[in-house]
């Protein structure tokens, strides 16, 4: 039996439409008169199909992962399923109560106390006050913030804030849960709790649709994976199958990506590259030499606790590197305005083979840049006949005879 049915669904956005704040009355009027003059009424200057001809069934109790590059339509799919926006054509049907978790802590107000925010957030997610009353203890315990429930959340640490926000969403009695990239923020402990809670939702028989760039988590958590590409379904099937097809697909080796600067955003990434030991972008690198990752970015507005990490996956979808800036620098060293070149040098520890590197940049509260597939490179070298390992450290064995334990030969 299905919990979600999607038929011939497409969703179109007018280009620039999402930047509503800049659309003033005068602009619309001049746009309109221009259109009448050109006798092109009704046709918008530019449009983009975020989803195209989607047909999808999700069985009740199933956990579906959704993967794809940025702009593939993953979030739009969740928004249509969760009824946040209407499709342009086609239909999406859901059975039972649906909860959308597109962001942790939506509607949290910094001036309100933890308790007040729990009730506000509960109401936003469609819970009754009595329901929240009943679950308050559970929420407080899950979040581990009991002594601070009457403190404004602006005094919370980012970890406490996220744990409380997630705890409310986690106790939501939804039959279908649509989750978008919540694992991109927070510390390991928070992510572990999130994953654990999603696992228990699966065992409770709830239907979960889970959008993520974390291919490792998708493989572990989801029985089926949907791969979106340019708004269309590229592939759907068993997780490990689709994830490895996704990783092996499309883009050929790339040692460098350059991005146009977006001046409207507080932080924008200008480029990412993988460099050999002499500092040149190279797709094929020597396994026995250090590998350098380089990120260029501009900070235009002060962003407290800015953080980034380069994520490297092998072709089996296992995350082999995830070194965050915050692990080596305090928060106050990570917020100044300016243009930066960041480099991280990884000693020769990875086994020979192909790798896919991505970049996450953001704060403990929000992802500002997240792409799992930016660079593809090969580490060339001798695996010494052992192809299945992830790390190849070259640490020698120290084997020596134990003194005095001479065994009698021949018995």
């Amino acid at each position, binding site marked *: *039996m299905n*919990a979600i*049915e999607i038929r011939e669904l497409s969703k179109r*956005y007018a280009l620039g*439409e*999402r930047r*509503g*704040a800049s*659309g*003033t*009355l*005068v602009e*619309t009027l001049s746009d309109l008169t221009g259109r009448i003059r050109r006798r092109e009424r009704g046709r918008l200057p530019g449009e983009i199909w975020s989803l195209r001809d989607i047909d999808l069934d999700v069985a*009740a*109790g199933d956990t579906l992962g959704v993967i794809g590059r940025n702009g593939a339509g993953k979030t739009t799919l969740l*928004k*249509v*399923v*969760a*009824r*946040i*926006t*209407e*499709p*342009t*054509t*086609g*239909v*999406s*049907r*859901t*059975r*039972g109560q*649906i909860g*959308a978790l*597109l*962001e942790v802590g*939506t*509607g949290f*107000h910094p*001036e*309100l106390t933890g308790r*007040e925010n729990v*009730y*506000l957030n509960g*109401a*936003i*997610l*469609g819970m*009754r*006050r009595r329901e929240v009353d009943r679950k308050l203890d559970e929420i407080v315990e899950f979040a581990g913030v009991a002594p601070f429930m009457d403190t404004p959340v602006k005094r919370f640490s980012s970890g406490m804030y996220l744990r409380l926000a997630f705890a409310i969403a986690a106790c939501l009695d939804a*039959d279908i849960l649509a989750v978008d990239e919540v694992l991109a923020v927070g510390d390991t402990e928070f992510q572990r709790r999130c994953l654990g809670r999603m696992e228990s939702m699966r065992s409770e*028989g709830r239907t979960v649709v889970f959008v993520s760039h974390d291919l490792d988590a998708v493989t572990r958590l989801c029985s089926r994976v949907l791969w979106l590409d340019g708004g269309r379904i590229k592939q759907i099937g068993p997780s490990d199958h689709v994830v490895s097809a996704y990783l092996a697909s499309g883009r050929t080796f790339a040692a460098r990506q350059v991005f146009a600067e977006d001046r409207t955003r507080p932080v924008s990434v200008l480029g990412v590259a993988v460099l050999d030991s002499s500092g040149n972008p190279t797709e094929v690198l020597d396994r026995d030499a250090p590998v350098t990752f380089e990120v260029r970015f501009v900070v235009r507005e002060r962003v407290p606790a800015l953080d980034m990490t380069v994520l490297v996956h092998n072709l089996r979808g296992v995350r082999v590197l995830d070194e965050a800036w915050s692990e080596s620098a305090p928060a106050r060293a990570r917020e100044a305005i300016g243009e930066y070149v960041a480099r991280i040098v990884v000693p020769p520890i990875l086994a020979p083979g192909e790798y896919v590197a991505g970049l996450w940049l953001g704060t403990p509260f929000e992802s500002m840049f997240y792409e799992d597939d930016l660079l593809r490179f090969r580490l060339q070298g001798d695996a010494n006949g052992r192809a299945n390992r992830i790390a190849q450290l070259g640490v020698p064995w120290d084997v020596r005879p134990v003194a005095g334990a001479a065994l009698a030969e021949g018995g």
Partner: protein
Amino acid sequence: MPGVTASEAQRWTENRATSGLRLPRLAELWRYRELVYFLALRDVKARYKQTALGLGWAVLQPLVGVAVVTLVFRRLAHVPSDGIPYPVFALTGFLVWNYFAGIVGDATDSVVANAPLVTKVYLPRLAAPVSAVLPALVSLVPGIFVLVALMLAEGVVPGIALVALPLCALGLLATAVGMGLLLAALNVRYRDVGGALGTLIQLWLLASPVAYPTSLLGPSWQWAYAINPMAGVIDAFRWSVLGAPRPGADIVVSAVVALLLLVGGLLYFEHQERRFADVI
């Protein structure tokens, strides 16, 4: 599987493109009534949390307003007040007007200010502008105490017309919510609305009988004047609370306009709502 029978009873919910006029989903809004309350509570707490005077502003604001207009309109311009002591007359007008302007202002901002909710969660978006009715109440209540004190001091006592007070309040709410819904939906598309709002409210204040009585206009003009629903609303409040002369038949014009504004606001908001998440 025990879960299957339970979920078989669950109904399918559809999401497909809609077009044309849509009836406002008031039943759903009612289900989410606690959300309306909590949104309002959030706005009130956030507003008064970092102020030194707190609710003192709610008392001070109308008092200063009344002092100024008493000086200008009464002492200098000798504006009549239908036989009611001028400060009581003006304060009643101000309280009604400030509540109205408070609702319209909060409602206009409500959808844009709650943009993260609109784009990240499914909820009846009507809840945002409707919740604007409550925060302005916080500054109205202390003002009412001041008015009662002033009425006692001036010896103004309401008559039997006081029973019509809920009707007056309905007229006020219809006008304010209707206008608020209209502007909130427009504000999503055109942020100019926020800038124009201050001027609109100021002009509207001058066009309403806040500091002067409707009777100041000739009888031939009163019908046209009643097209401003706030004219009828303020006159009705003065009649009910202060025992001012009973409003004439032109109050029907105000009532009809108020009702049209409410229905029009609801329909327009509901019509635009489907695109909020894409446009905001």
